[in-house]
């Protein structure tokens, strides 16, 4: 298969995520219309756009929670959509954080983190316990390890979910509206953890409406509408001087809030 030559910007570092020509239909609805997305190592890419633009679907394709109808996705050099690919092995390298946290309610915070360490990485109990404790410490929840999700605030639950993902030492982290379900006063704690991950060099793809965070932390902002990538660039350009009319309208609307 021939692939288009990489753009000069992307040529410097091999992209960790390289999705090309993604199409996705749900029945009569086409939610992705040939979208490309490439993310370089240590890059933080923000995806914004009105609801229904396909941004969450795009993100969910990147670990194949959603199966694209057409296109190709390379993550860390592995073609996710190939039949020969062991998708479970590939997913170890791709962490994901969900809008509704999706912690396992019947397990403590530490058990939530340990499950994949034990069952996927096949770690011994003691080793997994230690790794889970370290991951929870990283998100500032060392003292809440033995709490069940129901005993934690939304912000704390989301940080446990982040710990569950980073404990597997992924090459890239996907965030699907990680703060949208949180009360405003709990958003800060989650963003702080994300900022720290960023400083530690984690490659991140974030779908979110936290524009202030995007302006402060993103390397690149991608604007999507109607299943297409309309515009992308540094935050200063997208937020300060958007080229596309749809982008301008969206930014104006967001700024009013």
């Amino acid at each position, binding site marked *: 298969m021939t692939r288009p030559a990489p753009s000069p910007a992307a040529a410097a570092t091999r992209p960790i995520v390289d999705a090309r020509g993604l199409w996705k239909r749900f029945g009569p609805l086409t939610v992705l219309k040939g979208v490309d997305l490439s993310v370089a190592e240590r890059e933080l890419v923000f995806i914004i756009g009105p609801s229904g633009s396909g941004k969450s679907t795009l993100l969910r394709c990147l*670990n194949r*929670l959603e199966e694209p109808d057409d296109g190709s996705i390379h993550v860390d050099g592995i073609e996710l959509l190939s039949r020969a690919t062991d998708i*479970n*092995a590939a*997913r*170890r390298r*791709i*962490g*994901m954080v*969900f809008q*509704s946290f*999706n*912690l*396992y*309610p*019947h397990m403590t915070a530490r058990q939530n983190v340990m*499950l*994949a360490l034990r*069952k*996927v990485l096949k770690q011994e109990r003691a080793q997994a316990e230690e790794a889970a404790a370290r991951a929870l410490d990283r998100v500032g929840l060392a003292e809440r390890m033995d709490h069940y999700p129901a005993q934690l605030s939304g912000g704390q639950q989301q940080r446990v*979910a982040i710990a*569950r*993902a980073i404990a*597997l030492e992924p090459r890239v982290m996907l965030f699907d509206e990680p703060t949208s379900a949180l009360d405003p006063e709990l958003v800060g704690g989650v963003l702080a953890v994300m900022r720290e991950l960023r400083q530690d060099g984690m490659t991140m793809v974030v779908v979110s409406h936290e524009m202030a965070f995007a302006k402060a932390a993103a390397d690149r902002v991608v604007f999507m509408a109607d299943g297409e990538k309309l515009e992308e660039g540094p935050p200063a350009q997208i937020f300060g001087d958007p080229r596309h009319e749809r982008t301008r309208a969206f930014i104006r609307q967001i700024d009013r809030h």
Partner: protein
Amino acid sequence: MEEFLFAFLNGDILREAWPILWQGFLYTLALSAITVPLGLAGGVILALLSTSGPRGIRLAAAAWTDLFRAIPPLVLLVFLYAGLPFAGIDVGAWGAVAIGFFLNTGAYYGEVLRAGIGSVPAGQMEAARSTGLTRGQALRHVILPQAVRNVLPDLVSNTLEVVKLTSIASVVALPELLFQARQAQNATYNATPIVAAAVAYFLLLWPLVRLISRLENKAMAGR
């Protein structure tokens, strides 16, 4: 009053009938110990097939469940015990009970568990799969524990019915409690053995009934 006591609560008759009633009680215990686990195993298999298999398998599991819920367990049991030998297959009394209850109660447990699996949000499976767990691992460690918890009162309630249903094993010549009580009644022309059997069933099942109430109260409180 004296006549009532003589006919229903007769100590002499009870003493006389005690050995065979006790034997019947042991049979009922043994039957329950076989049928409940078998039914549960069948239920788990059916629930998994009908929620997580490929489309064709899901439909087949649903049809299977419908079929064995519609066939009266007594008919099924008689067929397995007295019908199959005509095809040269003799599974014996215990074999007929094991197969029959696996099919019948498995279908009922399967329906309960299917509802339980359906009550677990889709995000749970997605989260588990996103960490690299296989579908089977996710079902076993994430989905099923929550599913069982969500339908525990119904599972216990179903178990209650299964234990009561073991009384039909007498048609395949297994002398369980009710059968023995009726034998004793026929021999003594007195209803005391039947009353004793009722008390024995009550003592066996009452803890389960209490458990259901407690679970239901807990479930209500958890809302």
